[in-house]
């Protein structure tokens, strides 16, 4: 069973808004917390991981299926 993660729904938003929303949500999360970002803009596949790298958060996994994207981040 997967661990419980918070969900951030940014479907329909275009970059950089998904990144901004993820960043703002993560600011309120404790280290170790998981955040699932649900998105539709393919740009998030590039921008969210880049944002995680510069902030040192861990990208747990990325799924892309039928135009829907799910990116799981572990807050560091």
């Amino acid at each position, binding site marked *: 069973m997967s661990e419980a993660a918070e969900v951030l729904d940014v479907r329909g938003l*275009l*970059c950089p808004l998904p*990144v901004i929303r993820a960043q703002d949500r993560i600011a309120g999360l404790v280290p170790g917390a998981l955040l699932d970002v649900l998105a539709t803009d393919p*740009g998030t596949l*590039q*921008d969210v991981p*880049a*944002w995680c790298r510069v902030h040192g958060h861990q990208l747990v996994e990325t799924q892309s299926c039928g135009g829907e994207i799910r990116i799981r981040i572990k807050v560091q």
Partner: protein
Amino acid sequence: MATQVKAVALISGGLDSMLAAKVVMEQGVHVEGVNFFTGFCVEGHTHAIRKRRGAKPKRNNALWVAEQLGVKLHIIDVVEEYKKVLLQPKHGYGQHLNPCLDCKIFMVNKALAWGFMQDGGFDFIITGEVIGQRPKSQRKATMPVIARESGAEDRLLRPLCALNLEPTLPEREGWVRRDELFGFEGRSRKPQMELAKRFGFTEWSQPAGGCCFLTDAQYSRKLTDLWRAHGHRNYELDDIMLLKVGRHIRPAPHFKLIVSREEGENRYLEGYRKRFTTLKSISHEGPLCLVDGQPGPGDIALAARVVARYGQGRNAPVVTVAAEEADGRRRELRVAPLTPPEIPVAWHV
């Protein structure tokens, strides 16, 4: 142990702000970047909308720069606050609707405020400005205006042209060594190229014109048209986003058509089906069209003829176009596509 000096760098994604941050980092200062999303940024959106197929989505240059520099980048949504900057610029506009001087003042002020709010605070602000680089906003006379009106005063350091300006607080306090800063001036990009080479940067983005759509003549024309049609100059994020997408055709003052030009735009406009009347040819392949404004019954028939002209049925005698209202009510119109001369140039916004 001496306290770590910290600076906030405005990162646009271009070369100058990248170099400015690097120059200060080289002096042992802790740097973090901020980047502001005004809604008019060339970054992100349009790349995401257009040409999705094939080409992989374009990277966010500000994030890419942060990665090259090894600094944190905070992207800040200023869409709402930016309206005041655009609608009432104290210092006026540049060549188009770009309120560059007010925009810089605003961004430096936001960076300053952001720095104050962080744990431990930040000591000064860095920008990549170069005197004479841009005719209106980056002149010697505007530099002190930005420093003063942003509230940053002498906590604003421009590492690339500092030698042409009075020493700032970070220089006087010895947080940075003035003799390791630069005196770039004018429109030449050569000194920047050389500095980039020195730092080992081999790649950077060069947005033509500027960092945002407001420097673009066509975009500014569309925005002016939108304001005229709405009867006021306010706007929502969706309004200004839609100006970046599709062909904009205004057959009459009370309605406008937004016709997608390719698949990515088609998909983007699909997201607005529940808010606009939409038109699409069903007898032939064709673009999706949003109808913005208050069209009358006859207007929809005309709009359908315009839409038919941009589809595969453009040479057919009759094309069937589905018109769907925002509430889902749908009807079909059989129309003759307009010929190119029947669409006056003046209709193109």
